[in-house]
Structure formats: C-alpha cells, structure tokens
C-alpha cells in the first residue's frame, strides 16, 4: 500500500508534481499513466526517497520508505534501466545490492534466472542493451522479494516476448497480494495489464479509477466524423465540454458529444457528412479525452478564433492539422 498526501515537488520555479493525493492498493496492478513530463517518474522517485518532496508526504505500508528496517524487502523499484555501474557485472551488481540486506547468492542466482539474464550475468553492464538493462532493473527490484513493486516504464526497450513476460509477472505478483505500481505511456499495454489507473497530467491527477470505469466513462463520447466541410462543423460543434481534434484533413474526433447530436447539428446547417462513427471505448481514447479536457480545450477555441475572417468553405484542407484545435499540444494522432 502506497499512500501519498499533498505530494508536491518543485525543481526551481518549475512544478513537476502539484499537490497530488492518491493510494495504491495491494492485490492489484495500478497503472500510472501520463504524457512525458507529467511527473510520473518524479512521483515514483519521491516514494523511494531519491527525490525530496517540496511538500507533502508519501508512505509505504504506513512508514516513509527510509524508515523501514529492510527497505528492499518493502519496496522493489525499477526507476531507470541505467542505475548500474557500467564497469561491474550484472551478477556482482545484484550481489552487492543484496549484501546490504544480507540477501545471499542463492537469491541473486534466482532473480537472474527469473529475468533470463543467465547468459550475460557475468558480463559487464556497460555492454548491455536497453532491454537487458530493463531485465537487470527488474531483477534488482525483485531481489528483496518485496511487498511493493514500483516499475517505471518497465517494458521500454523490451521485445514482444519480454513485454508479455512483464505483463505476466506483474499480474502474478499482484495476485499474490503484492502492491504493484507501474508507469507507462503505452495505453494499450496498460489496458491489458492494469486493474486500476491513475492518470497524471502536468503534475496533477486527472483520473483515479478502475480501468473499466475510465474506458466506460468516455467510451460512448468519442465520435469520428468525416466531412468536406470539417472547418464549419468545428465552429458549429465547439462549446464547453466538447473536445475536437483533427486527425487528418476532413477527419475529426469529437469527444463530449454524441453521434446523434453531431448528425442533427450537421443536418440543420446543411453540412455534408461522409462518415459519423461512435468510436468504441478504448483506454487510449479515454486517456486522450482526459488529457484533452484538462489542457487542450482553451487552445482549441483560441485556435479557432485566431482567424475569424477565414472562409470556412475556402478549401477541403481547411480543417487540416494547421487549424487543428489544440494545435500546440493537441492529441493529433
């Protein structure tokens, strides 16, 4: 169980994590999602005390990480695939790390076997690929047989077999009753692995809910629209709570509205529609919708009004990415 209360981290004048409160429960895989720079890694680093919180607290099983008698038994963390001395072998790295807690060679060999590093264990880490580095990081995290696992982007650089292995591993560990906290920017991966998801954007929590809720909540609200008059349609649909992204010339993805409402609005304005499809809910769409709501809407409207005299019928490509709502940070896919 990880509990964060009002956790805040400033780096100089930049706020990386802004007053977040959340709980990661044992027995399930909790995914930590967010775009790059959202503050995921900073949050994870604060949990194990590598970064000092500017304000707020975070405890693991009721105590700050540093106050545990056997920190490695409490939390196993993979925070990056490069937290090793390049001149030391994988085996010696694990052996030295384990020695701090009296963890012996038998356990070191065990985690090497588990992570499939047998053939390279005696080689120096400097020559490792990113995937091998990730495996060694996971081996280090498992070394203390910890109650809580914190894995930052564990599937980065892994081959498909490795991705599947990590997925099975974290599911297995959670089923044993352990707390598993896993960050990723791969939404599809998270949909397959996590039970619960915390979405972070610009240092703030955007959502904290079971995967099913997050997918379900916005599932019916994404509508794919194709129209030769896309630009006019954008003006028509824009309003509070509606997010619009242009995916290609003539193509729009609308959130916060329904196919029925869009169809009726288009008919009333005599706008031709070539396609009007409610998109099946996916975690990815939900994630886009979430980050869009919090950050993008304002730039959406300002983008629209940037050139009010523009003739909407001007050209087919008018609704292309250049006019796209959210042109600066928008989730244009």
């Amino acid at each position, binding site marked *: 169980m990880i509990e964060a209360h009002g956790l805040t981290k400033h780096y100089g004048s930049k706020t990386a994590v802004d007053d977040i409160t959340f709980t990661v429960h*044992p027995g399930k895989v909790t995914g930590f999602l967010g775009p790059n720079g959202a503050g995921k890694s900073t949050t994870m*680093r604060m949990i*194990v*005390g*590598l*970064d*000092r919180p500017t304000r707020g607290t975070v405890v693991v099983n009721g105590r700050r*990480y*540093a106050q545990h*008698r*056997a*920190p*490695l*038994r409490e939390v196993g*963390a993979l*925070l*990056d695939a*490069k*937290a*090793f*001395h*390049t*001149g*030391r*072998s994988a085996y*010696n*790295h694990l*052996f*030295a*790390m*384990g*020695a*701090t*807690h*009296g*963890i012996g060679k038998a*356990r070191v060999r*065990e985690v090497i*076997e*588990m*992570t*499939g590093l047998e053939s390279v264990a005696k080689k120096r880490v400097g020559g490792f690929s990113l995937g091998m580095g990730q495996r060694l990081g996971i081996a*280090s995290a498992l070394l*203390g*047989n*910890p*109650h809580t696992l914190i894995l930052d982007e564990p599937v980065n650089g892994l081959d498909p*077999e490795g991705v*599947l*292995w990590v997925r*099975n*591993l974290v599911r*297995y*560990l959670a089923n*044993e*009753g*352990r707390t598993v906290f896993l960050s990723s920017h791969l939404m599809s991966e998270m949909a397959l692995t996590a039970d619960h998801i915390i979405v972070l954007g610009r240092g703030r929590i955007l959502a904290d809910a079971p995967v099913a809720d997050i997918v379900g909540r916005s599932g019916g609200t994404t509508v794919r629209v194709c129209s030769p008059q896309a630009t006019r349609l954008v003006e028509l649909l824009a309003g509070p709570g509606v997010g619009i992204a242009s995916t290609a010339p003539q193509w729009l993805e609308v959130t916060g509205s329904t196919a029925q409402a869009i169809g009726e609005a288009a008919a009333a304005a005599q706008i031709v529609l070539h396609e009007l499809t409610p998109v099946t809910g996916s975690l990815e769409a939900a994630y886009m919708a979430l980050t869009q709501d919090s950050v993008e809407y304002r730039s959406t409207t300002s983008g629209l009004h940037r050139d009010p005299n523009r003739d909407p019928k001007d050209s087919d490509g008018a609704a292309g990415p250049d006019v796209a709502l959210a042109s600066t940070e928008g989730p244009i896919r």
Partner: protein
Amino acid sequence: MSTSILTSPAETSSPGQRDADDVRLTFPRVVRSEWIKFRTLRSTIWTLAITLVLMVGIVTLYSAILASQAGAAESTSADGGSVAVFMIAAGIAQLAVTVLGVLVITGEYTTGMIRSTLAAVPQRLPALWAKGVVLATSIFVVSTVAVGISLIVMQLFLGADRLAPNLGDAETVRILVGTSLYLTAIALFAFAIGAILRHSAGALATVLGLLLVIENLFLIPWKPLQVLSPFLPGTAGFKIMTPQVQIDAMSQGAVGAVLGPWQGFAVLLAWVAVLLTAAAVLLRRRNA
C-alpha cells in the same frame, strides 16, 4: 521464463507474512556491500596495483642509486636518512590514491549507480560512511604492504652499508606508518571532494590542481601566502613523513607557522573532517 517465476520457491511467501529470515539493513552489511562493489571494479584493482608499483619502484630506484654512490652516508644523513625517500614515494603514489578516492564516489554518479545505492540504503549516510571505511582500509593496507616490500628492497640494496632504515628508531617508524596514514587521509580528502562535486573530471581537477598546483603557488615568497601555506592539506599532511632534521631546516627563517609531524597530520585530518561533514549534509539534502 515466465514459468520459472511461477515455480520459484522464494516467490511463494505471501507478502503479508512477516519474514522469519534475517533480511534487513545493517551498517556492517552496507560495509560488506561497498567492499563487494569496490573489489568488483577493474579500475579499483588497477589503481591499487599502480599505487603499489609506484611506491616500490621509486624506493628501488632510489636504493639502487644510493648503493652505487660513494659517500652516500653523509648525504642521506643531512636529509634525515634513507627513510626520507618515502616522502618522494608518497608524493607520487598520492596521484593514484586520490584518483581512486574520487572515482569510488563519482563513478556512481556518472553511471547512475548511485540511484541503486541510495534506493537500497535510503538513510544515505551509512552508504557514505561505508564507502569511506572500505576506501580507507584498502588504501591503508595496500600502502602498508608497499612500505613493507620497500623496506625489504632497501635492506637488500643498502643493508650492507648500514643505510637501510632502522626499525628500532622511533622517527623511522613514525615516517613509515605516517606514509600509510598520509595516503589514507589524502584518499579520504579526495573522496570527500568527489562526494561534494559528484563529477569525476571536476573532482579530479580540483584535487590534483590543489595538491600539485595551488599548494606550490603558496610557496611564492609573499607573506600572506606563506602564512597560510603550512595549513594547506597536502603541505600539512606531508609533515608526518618529514624527518625532523628537514622540519628544523625549514623552520629557519620561516615566515608562517612550523607544524610538527602530528600537528601537520591533524590539520589534514581536520580538512578531511570538514569536507566529509559538508559531503554528508549535501548527500542528505540533494536529490539523487
């Protein structure tokens, strides 16, 4: 691979149950961990080997030259005897031990290893002290071995002429032990600077620049520099290896203070203590 996880016996203990085995963090274990880290890097082994070879090599060269010279007895007694060669040997060997002292800590920062270290020892300071203990012990042992081999070499070359150091003489013993103590202390000095700067090149430039350049600049005959000069870490620490006749000669017309052997060494230790304290405070405060 995934099946091996499922069958692994160590994974079967439920996280709720408190562990009967003795897996926990203790200071002796952190020292053991640091010792494993220390000896499993090639750079460590190389630097210690170089230290040994440099010291024994210099003493051998000196002994061979001395043995071939007529009237060597008179010239060496003016310097305080053949044991004075250890000042030269330590002056060269300190280059190797300061490099080691710096790299022991900055190597972890430049590679990212420090994040693993501090995640395993989240109180942080035990890791710093353990590194210091391992470094100091290793360097003391290696330099003592180097002094021992050097003494045998000197006996072989100079024993017949009764020029070899006499272990019955208190000053000789002070110089021999002082050589190991000086190299140990100067390595800790470099280690503390490495821990403060966290950057290999920057810390090496600082330590070597101070010992080889700055301290020599203080020999410029300008009073303010000469007053401060005896208190610089290298200059002060060297006193523990300096024969009394040389200290007496230096005190003639000295502008600043003239420190005795142990006073000088105490000044070096004070430098080490202050810098290690600063390193400890910074380690507690900074993000890793």
